[in-house]
């Protein structure tokens, strides 16, 4: 491979990168981002008044995402309350991805009794440094057992029983444009990444809650 041979790849390479970024950016703004902001949610769920939402001033876009889980609300709740890097369950999302950012996440694969008690004021760590870095933790701002949990940074988790064996899990998040250094970075890095991790969390809770027929029928939180 000589330098002239190599240089013949230069223009097509940079052209491909530019086209990829422009196409992805355009698709994201026009089609993908609107889908991200309401992934799985019905029109009714988008306007649903959720607990905790009023306490957070909406200074940025709000996402509402939902998923149906074929398990009782008590089982879904049991997985939800052991969320957090410091609570044995991780965030039920893509731990291999979180660990590329020093999260030190170990996903729990079973419900642990010691993590079933969650109180207002408790901290849920996003990463291992949550104890010393406030940006790496969220504080529980409110709880309605087996129905709702909301965090101080504008993140609400709601469970709506559909019937005895199915539950609707609804998550609402208020994005703060200054969460990264500049709003442009927040919208191009944090917001799409947040979709990946949050939808991954919802899918992770669904997989775990639906996996064990015994838990599904009995309700693990009881």
């Amino acid at each position, binding site marked *: 491979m*000589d330098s002239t041979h190599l240089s013949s790849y230069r223009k097509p390479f940079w052209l491909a990168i530019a086209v990829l970024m422009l196409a*992805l950016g355009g698709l994201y703004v026009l089609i993908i981002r609107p889908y991200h902001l309401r992934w799985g949610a019905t029109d009714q769920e988008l306007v649903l008044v959720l607990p905790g939402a009023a306490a957070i001033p909406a200074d940025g876009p709000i996402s509402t995402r*939902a998923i149906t889980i074929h398990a009782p609300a008590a089982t879904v709740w049991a997985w939800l309350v052991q969320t957090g890097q410091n609570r044995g369950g991780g965030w039920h999302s893509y731990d291999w*991805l979180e660990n590329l*950012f020093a999260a030190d996440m170990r996903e729990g694969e079973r419900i642990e009794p010691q993590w079933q008690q969650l109180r207002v004021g408790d901290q849920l760590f996003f990463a291992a440094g949550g104890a010393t870095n406030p940006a790496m933790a969220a504080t529980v701002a409110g709880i309605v057992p087996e129905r709702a949990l909301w965090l101080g940074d504008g993140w609400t988790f709601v469970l709506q029983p559909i019937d005895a064996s199915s539950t609707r899990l609804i998550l609402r998040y208020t994005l703060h444009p200054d969460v990264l250094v500049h709003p442009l970075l927040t919208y*191009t890095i*944090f917001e799409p990444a947040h979709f990946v991790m949050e939808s991954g969390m919802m899918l992770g809770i669904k997989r775990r809650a639906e996996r064990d027929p015994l838990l599904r029928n009995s309700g693990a939180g009881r």
Partner: protein
Amino acid sequence: MIQSTHTARWGWGRTAWYGAEACVALTFLYSLVFIGYAIVRSTLAILATPEIDAGLTATLIATWAGLALPALVVAALAAIPVALIGALTALAIRVLLALGSATPTPRRAGASGLAVCVVVSLALLALLTQGMGVSWTPASAATLTFWLVTPLVLYSIAGTVASWQMAESWLRRRTAFGELR
């Protein structure tokens, strides 16, 4: 003889540009490889989830885009410091080669490139470990491997290969000049 050697070698500006461009291209390639890896792993997890009411195909595409966009933006942001490191590395290799024989062999040029890249890598590691307190622990292993060790290994390999090619290019041009004269 001296005149032909000078003509055969790349100028300082071209050398710096080549180093900068090679490092930025590597950064984007690395981000593309990461995107591919992340797409495969996230797809496997999504496919393992039954009955996604938001739609399987739409969820997959939305997740792929959600992974790709931040990775490419981070690569674009990293391009500025990476270009600087690439340019400085190429100039350092050029200086090292200029100290020796008039036209270095590709083997010697490759060794010089590797030496410069290893020294820069070790300096960076020393700065992070001694100056900023970064340490290798089981908790930080994945993070450091992804953000530091793999990029530095790629950087060192690229520095070696690029130096080798630079010397080959000089040799060819020198031969061509010699034949013309």
